[in-house]
């Protein structure tokens, strides 16, 4: 049994590694996580002393093109782009993870219960899901910002509220298809109670595809989150965040395009990598939905 498990794990790993784009994607995602970890634990490794705020240099406030001392150039008020992006990755990653994980947890719980119990409860929960699903995230973000203030935390909350219906629907669909499988029937015939079937048979089979979805969503959330802060929903933060970093260079777009391109590129690369990784993972965990 043990050897069978290890060999199936090795097979999964092989499938993932053989897919070159998924491999590259996974490496890039890992690098982003490593960067976030370094910024949290020991930022001096990259020669950064203030990992949680943007360092301005008012003696040369105008954006400078990429040079030896500033490899990616500087943006408004003399902020060095490379170090700021390295700092910002930690925040963007943390916020995106918070959104996806809380949204996925809430959604999967609701979806699994809804699909497993069925009947009136299912109808009720799905109606609520539909309602929340139809809320445009920008509107909800603003409404939430009204109540608890426009901060990064409230934006995370708003996005999580908008994101869970997706997982509720997905979790419900998975549960419905698993519920009809013969081994669930036989477990029920053996007299296993419903809750135990849910824990032992349904949830373990729902989770792997959900994890794939999470890794794909990570690539969607980060651009969405940075868009919120780009539009200006989070005022005067001075936190290194990629969307905010982009807005700093907005007035210099005609003379210094690198100020908006590099922060945006940092998001694009991550999002691309997360998508490639997610598609690779999907081939491993969920061969039926294999990407073409």
């Amino acid at each position, binding site marked *: 049994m043990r050897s069978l498990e290890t060999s199936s794990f090795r097979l999964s790993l092989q499938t993932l590694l053989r897919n070159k784009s998924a491999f590259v994607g996974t490496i890039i995602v890992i690098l982003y996580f490593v960067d976030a970890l370094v910024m949290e634990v020991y930022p001096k490794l990259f020669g950064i002393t203030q990992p949680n705020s943007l360092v301005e240099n008012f003696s040369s406030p105008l954006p400078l093109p990429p040079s030896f001392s500033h490899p990616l150039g500087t943006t408004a008020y003399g902020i060095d782009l490379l170090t700021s992006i390295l700092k910002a990755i930690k925040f963007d990653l943390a916020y995106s993870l918070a959104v996806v994980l809380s949204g996925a947890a809430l959604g999967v719980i609701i979806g699994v219960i809804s699909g497993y119990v069925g009947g009136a409860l299912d109808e009720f929960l799905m109606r609520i899901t539909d*309602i929340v699903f139809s809320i445009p995230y920008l*509107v909800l973000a603003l*409404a939430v910002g009204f109540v608890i203030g426009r901060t990064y935390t409230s934006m995370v909350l708003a996005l999580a509220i908008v994101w869970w219906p997706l997982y509720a629907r997905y979790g419900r669909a998975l549960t419905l298809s698993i519920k009809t499988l013969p081994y669930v029937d036989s477990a029920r015939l053996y007299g296993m109670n419903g809750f135990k079937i849910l824990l032992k048979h349904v949830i373990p089979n729902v989770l792997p595809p959900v994890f794939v979805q999470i890794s794909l969503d990570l690539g969607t959330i980060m651009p969405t989150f940075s868009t919120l802060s780009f539009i200006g929903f989070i005022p005067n933060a001075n936190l290194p965040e990629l969307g905010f970093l982009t807005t700093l260079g907005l007035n210099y777009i005609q003379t210094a395009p690198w100020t908006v391109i590099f922060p945006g590129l940092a998001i694009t690369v991550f999002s691309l990598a997360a998508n490639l990784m997610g598609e690779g993972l999907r081939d491993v965990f969920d061969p039926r939905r294999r990407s073409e």
Partner: protein
Amino acid sequence: MKLWAYILRRVVILVPTLIGLTFIVFVLSHSGGPNLVLAEYLNPHLSGSAKQAQIKALIQEFHLNQPIYVQYFYWLLQVLKGNLGYTNTPIYSGPVSQAFELFMPNTLMLSIIASVFTWVIGMPLGVWSAVKKDGVFDQTTRIAALALYSMPFYLIALSLIIIFGVYFRVLPFSGTVNLLLVGSVPWYQNGISYPTHIFIIDAAIHGKYMIALNALEHLILPSLALSLGSLAAFIRLLRSQMLEVFGQDFIRFAYSKGVPEKDIITVHARKNAIIVPLTNFVYLVAFLLGGAVVVESIFNIPGIGYWTTQALLNNDVGGIMGSTLLFGIILVAASLAIDVIYALIDPRVRY
């Protein structure tokens, strides 16, 4: 069941969805107390006892001393009577319904052009990358689509500005028209043109074709930006759907009985493959609305998205409730429309 009964049932289901949506946003935006509503309606020139009297009158009028769900009920009643309240933003203050009238046409124009772009660019790319699966064309299209899909929306818009507006200097990228051209025309005031509020059409109505041409140039970049954002999802869906159809027996049968490949692609495969991207139209509408907010802010276009952003950033309760209702109705109506179209074109769907 008849089709009309199906439509009727769907419409009945939509009503609680809209009520739930507006209720959530209403509770969230009114839970901060009466000050935001008061600030919207209070005459700023009043002071002393006159001010207190007006506050009292406003509290009476909007039932601000009652629980929020009661206030919501009164709000709903007003909406059903056609009164959407007032909005107060730097770009416009006045009745919400008039704000819709002034700003909606611009957004509509932008969205229509963007969806035409999406259709015209996406259709051949999606079909051909499925036909030439794993070829150079397919790989390039897939990588480009994935890269576009991964870009934050504002980066797409800014890149277009940098490439076409700043580097090549071929297209304008701010506002709806060159202001030097319209300095003295009487039908254009405060960034809004009359009578249709769509600048191109208004200019054409008044016979100023040069100005209309200039306005058209101003529309290209925003609508291209809007369409590029949705293009990636469209191409990917169409491609995977085409591939699925290609794998089916009736296509193989058509090949074996000697139907020309061109006819197989256009008549047999594309017709079947288009259904899923079409149902995805709802998400396209949702995306266009969300994207319009970003695009209109970046390109300075006085549309519904720009107004919504202003309402949101200025704590304008009336504007927020109004745009929530509008966005909700558009999304819900789009999803209804797509279900009906789906039922009409796909005989396998039973309703």
